[in-house]
């Protein structure tokens, strides 16, 4: 345990000393400085820079975020969006992985399902919003369904591709060594597809965040508009509400929150992915 901690901390230490780290720091600092100067250009230089001057300054956004993190309703919004992302993503994994595997393994099943799948796949998840509001009894379910669609197709496509790309020699070797069909599924197809599942999940969760926010804006903001209502809340609704209320700092603060949430989701999935596919990490 101590050894683990030590290697982790030494890894962090060497990362901070590394060139890449400082390049990143400089890049972000320059970006923030440009933004700050740009948005205060009217006050400081007497003329407004195009575009950036419309955006609230990073210091103002930071102050706003400092205020927001103390507010229960902000955390409630973040929680609601995270919950929807999790629900949709989880459902997409639970349904998408077996479906993708079945499509990869069975020619017949593939032949029957793939055409339908390919027709539905190019439809943007957001185009489903009106239909899903009609389909599902509650707004909550409609949003979760649209979120689900965002991750679902990516995951299925990755699973099919991953399973089909498994080298035929692995199957031949396993057969020669006496594996049954079930053994081949469990010991060759499943682990062989795992790296693609991880990729699909990491990409999928990003799409999920994009979709959930838009779905909240459309459905949550459009209907009752009640913040405390079942379908109200969520970061998308939060941003929409800020827009309606004219609070530009709050809009940007909401956007950054989504960025951070998306980053954390992907990072967590990448970590889980690395842990599940230890053979891919360099020693």
């Amino acid at each position: 345990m101590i050894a683990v901690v030590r290697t982790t901390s030494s890894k962090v230490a060497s990362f901070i000393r590394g060139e890449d780290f400082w390049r990143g720091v400089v890049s972000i600092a320059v970006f923030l400085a440009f933004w700050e100067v740009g948005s205060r250009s009217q006050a400081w230089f007497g003329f407004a820079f195009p575009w950036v001057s419309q955006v609230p300054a990073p210091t103002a956004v930071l102050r706003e975020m400092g205020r927001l993190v103390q507010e229960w309703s902000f955390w409630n919004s973040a929680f609601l969006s995270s919950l929807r992302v999790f629900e949709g993503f989880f459902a997409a994994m639970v349904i998408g992985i077996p479906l993708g595997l079945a499509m990869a393994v069975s020619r017949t099943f593939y032949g029957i399902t793939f055409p339908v799948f390919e027709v539905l796949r190019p439809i943007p998840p957001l185009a489903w919003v009106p239909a899903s509001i009609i389909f599902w009894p509650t707004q909550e379910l409609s949003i979760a369904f649209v979120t689900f669609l965002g991750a679902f197709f990516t995951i299925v496509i990755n699973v099919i591709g991953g399973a089909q790309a498994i080298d035929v020699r692995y199957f031949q070797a396993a057969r020669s060594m006496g594996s049954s069909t079930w053994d081949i599924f469990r010991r060759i197809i499943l682990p062989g597809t795992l790296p693609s599942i991880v990729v699909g999940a990491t990409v999928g969760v990003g799409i999920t965040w994009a979709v959930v926010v838009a779905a909240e804006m459309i459905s949550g903001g459009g209907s009752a508009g009640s913040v405390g209502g079942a379908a109200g809340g969520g970061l998308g609704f939060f941003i929409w509400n800020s827009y309606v209320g004219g609070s530009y700092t709050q809009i940007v603060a909401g956007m950054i929150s989504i960025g951070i949430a998306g980053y954390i989701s992907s990072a967590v999935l990448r970590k889980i992915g690395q842990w599940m596919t230890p053979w891919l990490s360099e020693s």
Partner: protein
Amino acid sequence: MSARPTATQRSSPDTGSVHKGAVSINDVVKIYGADDTGILAVDRCTFEVPPGEITVVVGPSGCGKTTLLNAIAGFHSISYGSIYLDDQMLCGPGKLKAPPGPDRIVVFQNGALFPWKTNIENVTFGPIMQGAMSRGEAYDKARDMMADAGLHDVGHNYPGEISSGVRRRVEIVRALMNNPRILLLDEPYRALDSLTKSVMHEALLEIFYKNRVTIFFITHDLEEAIFLGHRVVIMTTRPCRPKKIIDIDIPHPRDYSVLTAKRFREFMDETAAAVHEEAIKAFAAGEKER
């Protein structure tokens, strides 16, 4: 050199003799596609793979050597003819594709260790799958065999973490763990540099002297063929058929000093012309196809 058992001796009942794993290939034809319009890959191919010896098949790339290997392994069917392993018909009339089995294990051209399993998990895969050993027994035997092959410290590494030469050795140990009657090696050292190759050759011979398992070795490297083989079968270019079968009477055990021996050079001379002739034909045929 000890007298080589003839092909007829293979039918002796299993008396615990180490010389098992004779393969006889009789009039095998393989056509890809329809009989009249398809591509004839193997044409009335007949030869014997004596038990307990190394038979090396040499021929130009794409000549159909691998087709034969796949037929023996049970990965692909043949069109006509028959193949026997000892007394048992693997494939023949009425049963054109043999079932794959642990008595015939292939070591593949670019290796087929499962990348998601550690080396020792790879090595124990066969016996555990077949239920031939308990997990504990399999791991004990695997450790012994890996140590024997000079693979002490790589058991818990993944194949991706070791060099390709070591990987190939692990794969041969994985094959041997199944107690195969015949090892089918499909240009296993093709991707290796020539220095690593020379190390691998001696290592393979060492393993062979210990186990005396029949080896069917495909290559297009003549030097490799003569160095390893008891007999070298030179194939014609597509369609594939034996052009020349040469018994290499350089005594075993062999080591690398053999390479400079006069007898070795004579064999090189004897075979090089035949191989070169086929290579030219293959090249010309390739030009025409494109």
